[in-house]
Structures are given as structure tokens and as C-alpha cells.
């Protein structure tokens, strides 16, 4: 076990998978010569050369489409979105093409590609660079969505995503790149669709991923002092979703809170909350609560941005509410 950053964990995953499989290549803006806008691809150009670490023009729809075509005929592209907000420029390629080609072709052509990059709010990046893009893709059958919250998960899940035969949306976080954690030595993978109980508890289940996972764990720590025992479930993958694990936890605690950093309306919390109501209704002792971003674009001003994103105070209030 070594303690490394989330960024290093991702870098290791890319490096190991590119060494393992010559069909894997990385393509995106500033991934090569610049060493990655967030340094995730640092050193890869030196090791693998410009054939496999490919700098692109600013042309997201174009190079995402190139990735799809290459994947259809047997390569395993990793397409980097400098930030996931830019995936909106390529959304036709992702939603209309990548997600549907396997189905439209009756199972003949699959699209084994990873589209990865950071998403969600960071520090004062304002409205166009702070979106939690997972909810845009959550609706689309044919896509898989991964949202890792720890260095260990980031590495194990990225390796699985690269080896997966379907298109995977892999959303990292600017706020997490510098966080550290224990990562197992050597080659390991974490299967897509398997969540993890990040903290065990009795009184309430909090479903949280990515940056919200860290907030949930900190909050749980403090509530422990008040005698409230919080269980934190990290789904890690949103599609496919480990509903079994979530239901197991809710059936134990009888109360559930779902967190997300994006606006709540028609978001991930709505989806998971509805599944809990459908599958664990008779176990609920209180309505499912959502703790989400405010229903507004993300503002620039520091105080407004803080108010937009879920906070410890709001999470504590939600916990108290379901326990009342």
C-alpha cells in the first residue's frame, strides 16, 4: 500500500493500461506536450510517443467522433475532456452515436471507449465550468457512468473502464486531484457497478459520491459525537447502479439521504430517491431527503458559490430532519 494522490492514481491507471494493451491510446486537448491541463497525463507522451498520446485541436465533437469510429473497428480510445463541461459540444456524438451504435446495429458494433475528465464545481470557475455533468448522461441507456471519490477507486475504476466493452463516462474532479489516499500495490481493478460502504452506521444512510462523499464522511464524523450513527454508501458507478447495496443499507437504517453537487431538479438524487421509494418503501421511517446544489447556475462570487453547493450545515439539517 502506498499513499498517493488521486491525480497520480489516474496517471498510474493510464500508464499501466497503455503498457498492457497497445490498442489503448489517449487523445484530447493538451494531453501531450503540455502534460495535461490538470497534469493527469504527465509523462505519458515521453513514454508512449505522439502516436498514442495525441494532442488535438479544440474540436470536441470531431475528436470524440474519431474516438467512436476507432472504437468501432477495434481500438480502445481514451478521450479526455479538458473539463467535462466541454462534453456538451460533443453531446450528439456521445448520446446519438456512442450510446446507440451497439443497439442500432443489433449488437454488431460495440464502442469500447472512455471519455474522461474533471467535472462538478471547483473554486470560483463560474457557470460554464462548474457543472456536474453526470446527470446529463444519467438518462441515457447505453452509457456507463463512473464518479470515483478516492485515489484507490479512481485507479481501480479507470482500469476497469478502459477494459470495458461499452462507452464509459468517467468524471473526475478538480477538487479531488490533490487529495491523497492509500492505493494497493500492483495491478488491481474495481468492477463497474459495485458500490462500497465507506462508513458503517445505524441511524441514517447517506448516498454520496465524488466530492460529496468527502463531505458526507466529514459530517458523519461530527454527528458521531452527537450520538448519531451515519452510514455512508458510495455507489462509485451511477450506471450501472449498485441498487442492491443501497437497499441493503436503507433497510438497515430506515432513513435515506441522497447527495449531489449539481442542481437537484431531475438529478441523480431524484433518480436514486425514486428507486429507494420503489424498492424499500416499507422500510422507510421518513421521506427520502435530497441534499443538492441550488437550482441556479453556479455563480462566481465566493459567498454565492458556497451557498450554491451542498454544505455540512445543510447535510446536518437533513440528517436531523429524517431523524425527527
Amino acid at each position, binding site marked *: 500500500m502506498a499513499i498517493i494522490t488521486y491525480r497520480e492514481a489516474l496517471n498510474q491507471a493510464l500508464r499501466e493500461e497503455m503498457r498492457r494493451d497497445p490498442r489503448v491510446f489517449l487523445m484530447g486537448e493538451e494531453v501531450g506536450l503540455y502534460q495535461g491541463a490538470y497534469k493527469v497525463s504527465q509523462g505519458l507522451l515521453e513514454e508512449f510517443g505522439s502516436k498514442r498520446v495525441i494532442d488535438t485541436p479544440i474540436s470536441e465533437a470531431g475528436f470524440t467522433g474519431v474516438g467512436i469510429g476507432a472504437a468501432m*473497428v477495434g481500438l480502445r480510445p481514451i478521450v479526455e475532456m479538458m473539463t467535462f463541461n466541454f462534453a456538451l459540444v460533443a453531446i450528439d456524438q456521445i448520446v446519438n452515436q456512442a450510446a446507440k451504435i451497439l443497439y442500432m*446495429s*443489433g*449488437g*454488431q458494433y460495440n464502442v469500447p471507449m472512455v471519455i474522461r475528465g474533471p467535472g462538478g464545481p471547483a473554486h470560483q470557475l463560474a457557470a460554464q465550468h462548474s457543472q456536474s455533468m453526470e446527470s446529463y448522461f444519467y438518462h441515457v441507456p447505453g452509457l456507463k457512468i463512473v464518479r470515483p471519490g478516492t485515489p484507490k477507486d479512481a485507479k481501480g475504476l479507470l482500469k476497469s473502464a478502459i477494459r470495458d466493452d461499452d462507452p464509459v463516462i468517467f468524471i473526475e474532479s478538480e477538487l479531488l486531484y490533490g487529495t491523497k489516499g492509500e492505493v494497493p500495490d500492483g495491478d488491481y481493478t474495481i468492477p463497474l457497478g459495485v458500490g462500497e460502504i465507506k462508513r458503517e452506521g445505524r441511524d441514517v444512510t447517506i448516498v454520496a459520491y465524488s466530492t460529496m462523499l468527502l463531505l458526507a464522511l466529514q459530517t458523519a464524523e461530527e454527528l458521531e459525537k452527537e450520538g448519531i450513527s451515519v452510514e455512508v454508501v458510495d455507489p462509485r458507478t451511477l450506471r450501472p447502479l449498485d441498487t442492491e447495496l443501497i437497499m441493503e443499507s436503507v433497510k438497515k437504517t430506515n432513513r435515506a439521504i441522497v447527495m449531489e453537487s449539481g442542481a437537484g431538479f431531475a438529478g441523480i438524487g431524484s433518480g436514486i430517491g425514486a428507486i429507494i421509494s420503489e424498492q424499500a418503501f416499507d422500510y422507510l421511517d421518513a421521506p427520502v431527503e435530497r441534499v443538492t446544489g441550488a437550482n441556479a447556475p453556479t455563480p462566481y462570487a465566493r459567498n454565492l458559490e458556497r451557498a450554491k453547493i451542498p454544505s455540512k450545515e445543510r447535510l446536518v439539517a437533513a440528517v436531523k430532519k429524517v431523524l425527527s
Partner: protein
Amino acid sequence: MQKLERKELVDLLRQMLLMRRFEEKCAEMYAMGKIGGFLHLYIGQEAVATGAISVLRPDDSVIASYREHGHALAKGCDPGKIMAELFGRADGLCKGKGGSMHLFDKTRHFLGGHAIVAGQIPIGTGAAFASQYEGKDQVTLCFFGDAAVNQGVFHEALNLAALWHLPIVYICENNRYGMGTAVERATPVKDLYQRAEAYGIPGEAVDGMDVLAVRECVGAAVERARRERIPSFIEAKTYRFRGHSMADPGTYRTKEEVEREKQRDPIVLFRNHLTAEAVIKESDWKALEKEVRTAVEEAVRYADASPEPPLDWLLTDVYVSER
């Protein structure tokens, strides 16, 4: 380009005739309610796909738009399986899940019909990228209509192909109308092939009603792509004799114009040419007609005999891992 043998010439005529009769049958099947959804016929444009695809090797890739029945036939896809797909049957090319606009055939390197205008252009570019990445000499032909040249991804894809020297030939089938909008109402440049200049790649126009001219022009471009990794942009000037889809009222062009264009029916032109050159006789033509009609009837019989897809197929092929 070397002179073609008689057999090759007759094959070209047969291919075009098959497309024509197949599409006419599709119109009939649509009217009978056997084909659903949208149906875009290739009638009038047969020389383009026939001439272009005739120069390919079997392992070269083709990708096209939603008006792709002709391209699928030319790439060697089974007419019965295509018709079954149009009927929404289990034995269709795509198990009945794709339909008229989404024919795919992996065994023929046919990368599909795509129904978002220009959506297939970067994907075809990706197939060419893969050929280059793996050091192979396969070429990709990427077909689209005149309306696609104003979509962003058209420009993005040509830029990338030129930048990375990808083995691809872009073929714009300019049939003069994007649905009901005439080219001059959508694009300020008169000759679409001129757009190639912006990306520093060869651009060329060809008479899309002349199957031999198309064959020659695309043949040279394919060789450039295969040997020198130079992408090309070819504008095939053609005409669609039928509406945009079956629901097209045809209010945007005059009957006189359609009649005038029909005088340059690519099949009639080529048949006359072969007759004048004494390559075929009237009896050969009759035999071809009979052969093609039989093939189309056989396709309908195959499609009719195929069952509807079982309901549990609804949820298969969404993900590979859950198959």
C-alpha cells in the same frame, strides 16, 4: 484507370439496377405498411454508390447517412437481410433494431447508416484513424449529402483528417436539396468541393450520373488515400428523382425540373452507353432485369418469412456486458 472487362461493366449496370428495383419495391412495401418510420429512397443517385464502392477492397470501410440502402447493397450486404431489417424482423441485418436509417453489417465493414446529418463524418474519420494507427492500408469511404457540409462536425472531421493524414475519401452526394432546401439557399459557395481547399486537401467535382466517371474519380482518390495517406473531398453532382422521404409533397421544385433531370437517369445513360459500345444486347438487358427482379422478390419473400423479433430483445444489446 485501366479499361474494364465486359463482366465488370455488366456488374456495374446490374448493381445500379438492383438498387433501383430494390428501392421501388421499398416504396411499394411502405405503401402497404410493411415498412414503417421514415423511408428515404436512393432512386436517381445509384451511379454514386455503385461507382465509388466498386473500387474498394472488401476490407475497406464504408459509412453513410440515412439514405443508405444503395450503399449497403453495393458493399455486398444481403438484400433479404436488408429488406427484413426494413420490415422490422428478427433476421434483419440489425435484428430489426435499426430500421431503414440504421443498416450496419460488420462482416462487410459497413459502419452504418446514421441519421443525424453529418454525425457519421467524424466516425468514418475515426475508422480511417484506426487503419493508420494499426499500420494497415484500409481506406474508408464516408458518404453524406449536400446539407451536411454546413454542420460543424463536417469541418472538424476534415480538419482532423487533413491534420493527421488519414486514409479517407469524403464523398458529398450533392442531390441539390437538403430535404426541401435547395443548396443555393443553404450554402454560399456554388461548388461544394471548393470547401476542401480550406483544409488543404484535394477537392474535385464529378458527374454523379456517370458511373464510370465516379469510378475513375473515386478510384484515384482511394489510391491516394491508400498509398500516400492523403484524404480527399469529392462532390458527386447528382439528383434525387423521388421526394426526400415518402411524406415529401415536392412543393420546393418544379415537375419540369424533375422531368428534365430524369432525362439523365444514370441507369439509362449507362445502358445506352453499353449498348452503343456493343457490350450488351437487348436480350442481355432483359436477362438482367429478370435476374434483378427475382432477387428483389426473393428479398421480400425472405423478409416476409422472418418472424418479428422476440420481446426480450428489447433489453439486449444496450450494453455488451449484459448481453
